[in-house]
């Protein structure tokens, strides 16, 4: 399976080459980056076909078998993340061909973007703790630089806040890895999993707390969320889409899931922790989002709320809950990326992000208006869009686990979500067109194309949710259900 290391090799190579191309014409770097992301996206689909028969692939780096060397693991969960990361990245690069014309140093932007993709792919693929840390840092540092890309005062401030929080998170994670190494003498996830299986001492719970704090900071679960509402709106729109849609899931949710389910093994107490964090994020994010007047800030708070849904679903611990959580992860990546791209399109044409200043924009910007309506409806869980099914699955999971109050709360938060997205629609796209916006034009067609494709995915995933579920979601759920059998699977095969 020699295509697995290419998920890291290609974007890294492209990043190094793009810096060399800094002086060349813009078209060259535009074409190069789109080819690279398209290639990665196609590779991720190829992997689905290969993985269908095998279940799990292990790739050892440099022929040193674990625990001696580093291994890359592709199983259902990694594959789901790979598909999400690389496809969203492709749409975002397509969009930024036009959008980033407003900024200087486009080639360097693409280079940083490639590094971020490489970092996320590395995090998702690796089977080794220290390697996880290294790629975590690549993705994080690239994202700090991308948040500050416009170098205006607010962007720098937001990026600094993000950077300080995230650096603390990285140090906590490294400390925890050190603790595990001291205890077991190994760095491989599967190996550590087999050593600590069944053991219980204070040291392990301490390292667990450090991991939860560290990755929780990266995922912006509510007690650790302070950086997100500043950082995500300040970034250029394609980056906001990438950060909110993919990065917090690849660095936060995926790592938490992998470590808690597959290395430590879930216990009753841990499911409670997941649920409590999930509820706080879900309700808190929703309430805070309702008060926002800035389009992108509202979307950022809504991301916190939706991350809460995912955590809650994972905390159910049964088939439907986990399926709903993973499906919601997929869906949130598509519609949140779509909505951020919409907000970017509005900003591109009108130059404002304040909801009160907009109005009636769907008359002059029909594509943006229509796609944002689709995005809003699907994030609030209206059938037949995809958000409905994932929320339904989470609610079924909660009911099966016997938590009726939580199920009702979830429905209520869903109504809340609908409320604040209706607010967006009413203020920005419907209503009377203000005089100063009559001259506004629709954004360039290449930006429209990527928004339209994302909107089509939102509808398509809603209608054809069953084949989607069978092909890429069920293998991922199986990985979670296997739990700590992970280590014997990896070390044995």
């Amino acid at each position, binding site marked *: 399976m*020699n295509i697995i*290391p290419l998920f890291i*090799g290609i974007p*890294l*190579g492209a990043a*190094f*080459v793009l*810096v*060399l191309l800094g002086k060349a014409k813009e078209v060259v770097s535009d074409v190069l980056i789109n080819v690279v992301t398209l290639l990665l996206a196609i590779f991720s689909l190829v992997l689905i076909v290969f993985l269908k028969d095998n279940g799990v692939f292990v*790739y*050892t*780096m*440099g*022929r040193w078998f674990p625990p001696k060397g580093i291994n890359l693991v592709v199983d259902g969960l990694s594959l789901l993340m790979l598909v999400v990361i690389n496809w969203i990245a492709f749409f975002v690069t397509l969009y930024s061909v036009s959008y980033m014309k407003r900024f200087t140093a486009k080639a360097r932007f693409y280079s940083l973007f490639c590094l971020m993709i490489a970092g996320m792919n590395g995090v998702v693929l690796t089977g080794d703790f220290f390697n996880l840390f290294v790629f975590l840092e690549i993705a994080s540092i690239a994202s700090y630089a991308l948040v500050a890309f416009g170098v205006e005062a607010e962007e720098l401030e937001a990026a600094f806040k993000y950077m300080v929080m995230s650096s603390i998170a990285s140090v906590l994670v490294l400390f925890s890895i050190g603790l595990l190494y001291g205890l077991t003498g190994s760095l491989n996830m599967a190996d550590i999993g087999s050593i600590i299986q069944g053991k219980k001492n204070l040291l392990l719970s301490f390292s667990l707390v450090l991991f939860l704090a560290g990755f929780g900071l990266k995922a912006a679960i509510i007690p650790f969320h302070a950086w997100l509402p500043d950082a995500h709106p300040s970034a250029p729109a394609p980056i906001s889409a990438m950060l909110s849609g993919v990065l917090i899931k690849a660095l936060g949710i995926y790592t938490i899931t992998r470590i808690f389910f597959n290395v430590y093994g879930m216990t009753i107490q841990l499911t409670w922790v997941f649920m409590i964090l999930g509820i706080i994020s879900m309700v808190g994010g929703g309430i805070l989002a309702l008060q926002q007047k800035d389009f992108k800030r509202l979307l950022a708070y809504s991301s916190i709320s939706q991350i809460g849904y995912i955590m809650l679903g994972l905390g159910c611990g049964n088939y439907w809950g986990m399926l709903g959580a993973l499906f919601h992860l997929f869906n949130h990546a598509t519609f949140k990326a779509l909505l951020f791209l919409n907000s970017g399109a509005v900003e591109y044409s009108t130059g404002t992000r304040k909801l009160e200043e907009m109005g009636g924009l769907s008359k002059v910007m029909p594509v943006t208006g229509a796609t944002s309506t689709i995005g809003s409806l699907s994030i609030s869980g209206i059938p037949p869009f995809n958000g409905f099914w994932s929320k339904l699955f989470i609610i079924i999971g909660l009911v099966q686990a016997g938590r009726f109050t939580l199920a009702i709360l979830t429905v209520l938060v869903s109504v809340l979500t609908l409320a604040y997205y209706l607010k967006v629609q009413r203020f920005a796209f419907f209503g009377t067109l203000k005089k100063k916006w009559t001259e506004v034009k629709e954004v360039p067609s290449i930006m429209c194309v990527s928004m339209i494709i994302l909107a089509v995915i939102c509808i398509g995933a809603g209608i054809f949710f069953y084949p989607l579920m069978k092909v890429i979601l069920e293998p991922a759920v199986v990985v979670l259900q296997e739990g700590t059998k992970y280590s014997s699977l990896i070390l044995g095969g």
Partner: protein
Amino acid sequence: MSPYRARKEGMTNIVKTISKFVVPPIILFGIYMVLHGHLTPGGGFPGGVIMASGFILLILSFGKEVTLKKLKVSTASILESTGALIFLCLAILGIPAGGWFFVNFLSKGYPLKIISAGIIPLANIGIGIKVMGGVFAVFFTLVVFRISAKR
């Protein structure tokens, strides 16, 4: 008087004279450290930083104009990318040569000699070039920015 020393930019004559003698050995020591990374403590990263710190000493003592004649920032930036590409190519060459990413595909040679350990010295050279270029470029950018911010 040499033309470099006559300039007003930079520090005093004492510093300039001493750094004129010290900079070449520093860079040479950096190269030594890169090449002997697989035998003695050290390696690509510290060696590269030492080489870069030779140039940083030039910036601090002679000012930026003189240093730019020795090493341009664009050259440093190209060096950085090239070094990184060398390392990545060594990694990818492992696939055709040995079947896996990052296989040490060259012969191991006699231990404890300078030409031994397969791709490790080559990788060290790549890292050394990369780190030198990178550290120099970032330091230069920081210095130049500070001056223009005062304006």
